[in-house]
């Protein structure tokens, strides 16, 4: 069985839109490896000289790799992290990958207030976050877990509303949906395994400081 050794720092990067942003940021602090690309067929890419291993995984799996210590460090959106509920340390807000999680309904069927949607059906990829949100409003809902094209839910009568991520709002408009309440804003986070954080403290701490320095100097520019 492959386990993370003390010599290497293993970093899990998610496929998709966060990949290149994360890889570029790590490269700026000297964390890179030859052939590190999203399209790489190799799943583990090492830099023997700097004792770094990158693993490229499906987005939703990053927190799992990190929680179990198969990766020491990971990059993941706060939305996915909250939904997973995994017990990992959240070390740094990387600032990129900004998105907005909200509830939307078909424009024609908009009701007077949020409370009047109680006990209706909501389609979402984020049932845990949605449930926590509605519970905090004292509302019970029927959650329908979908894995994509959430906007389709209300159109075909599968649900009365959706809870989903929006970036520009274009998809909502095209499907005649309207945001009625914001739930959370999310950005990419640097996460760490709780044991690795202790056992490899010096390396991880230095990495966080270096990343923080880069991020802060970019904000100033």
């Amino acid at each position, binding site marked *: *069985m492959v*386990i*993370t*050794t*003390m010599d290497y720092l293993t970093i899990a990067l998610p496929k998709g839109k966060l990949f290149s942003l994360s890889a570029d940021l790590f490269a700026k602090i000297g964390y890179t490896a030859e052939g590190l690309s999203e399209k790489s067929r190799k799943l583990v890419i090492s830099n023997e000289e700097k004792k770094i291993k990158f693993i490229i995984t499906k987005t939703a799996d990053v927190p799992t790799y990190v*929680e*179990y*210590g*198969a990766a020491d460090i990971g990059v993941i959106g*706060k939305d996915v992290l909250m939904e997973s509920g995994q*017990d990992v*340390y*959240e*070390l*740094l*807000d990387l600032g990129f990958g900004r998105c907005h999680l909200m509830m939307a309904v078909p424009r024609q069927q908009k009701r007077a207030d949020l409370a009047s949607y109680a006990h209706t059906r909501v389609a979402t990829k984020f049932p845990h976050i949605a449930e926590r949100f509605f519970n905090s409003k004292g509302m019970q809902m029927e959650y329908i877990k979908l894995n994509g094209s959430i906007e389709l839910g209300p159109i075909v009568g599968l649900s009365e509303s959706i809870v989903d991520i929006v970036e520009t709002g274009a998809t909502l408009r095209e499907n005649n949906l309207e945001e009625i309440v914001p739930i959370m804003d999310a950005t990419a*986070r640097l996460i*760490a*395994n*709780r*044991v*690795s*954080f*202790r*056992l490899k*403290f*010096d390396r991880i*701490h230095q990495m966080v400081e270096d990343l923080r320095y880069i991020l802060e100097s970019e904000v100033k520019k």
Partner: protein
Amino acid sequence: MQANDIVLEIPYGTRDFLPHEAAEKRQLETTLADLFASWGYDEIVTPTIEYLDTLTMGNGHVLEPHMFKFFDKNNRTLALRHEMTTPIARVAASRLKDETLPLKLSYISSVYRYEQTQTGRQCEFYQAGVEFMGSGTAAADAEVIALAAEGLRRTGLQNFQICLGQVDFINGIMQQFQLDDAMQTKIKAAMEQRNLVGLEALLEQTTLAKSARELLRRLPLLHGGEAVLAQAYDIAVTEQSRRALDNLAAIYHLLEEYGVAGQVQFDLGVIRDFNYYTGMVFEVYTPGLGFPLCGGGRYDHMLSDFGSACPATGFALGIERIMLSLERQGLRMPQIRKDIYLAYAPGKLAAALHKAQEYRQQGQVVELAPAAQSEREAADYQTGKAYQKLVYIS
């Protein structure tokens, strides 16, 4: 699904220990039990089920949603014990109340938590630990830490690290900034989860000066060797924080004498998630296992919750996690001994069983054939069951 399939399943979060696993577990537990006894800790056994009210005494209510609960005939709520400290505190505050202090007790028990199963932890899992009650000294704290380290060493684990912290250090710092209780709770929760992003966001909401916010932001990063203590003294302004650091320094010097200081790192953030700790807290980690092997600390208020105030300190080791770490680090424990397979020709049972007894008295592990066998059958059996030697009585 066929009825038989259901009968063969086991409930979520439970496991069978097959013979070689059970043998390893037994050996590990024996090693630890002997060690605890040699340090003067007496074993105690408490019921697997307790009243829910007992287990949720003090801060147990935090874990209440994770307890297995049911009712007795009088409809009182019972629960499976979720850890051993609370039941032992109950005994210490009641039936052992008049014993000479300090009380040194040890246990090796199953405990139960209804939660997502993790590496080396099912809903039912095994813990070995000690409780040292009736002493509030650094010497008592150092003793339990040294004993935990010695326990791990005896099991064969060499490569592990002890992270040592002190609850009062953070509490004192909080006092120094006069934050209200709600904010303190939120900040501590963020520190405990090492949610540094959340912590920063919380600090932005306070009216604290920039320097104070920066100091609090960096608290969870106070990690390292002895030098960290010196750094911490620069931050600690209140009596409470300074006393906490003095306490850690005293414990550390004793651990040097015990010869385990080399494996100790300070971690002055919030380490343990239990709210009942009142002083020193520690966790032990090993490479290759993403979860702690051992956790412990001082809990001076727990016994007073049961009506008999008394300072106390202790730890619990996770048996399955130690087994898993040994396996992953290639340190498997010796296999079950299989010395002699003893078979016999028809009519020779009496002679065979006398012979078997003789060997057993010499300390050999002997399996007697279930019935008369030919020498050839016996040889097959010996190989199949991996016995070292075949003895055939003809």
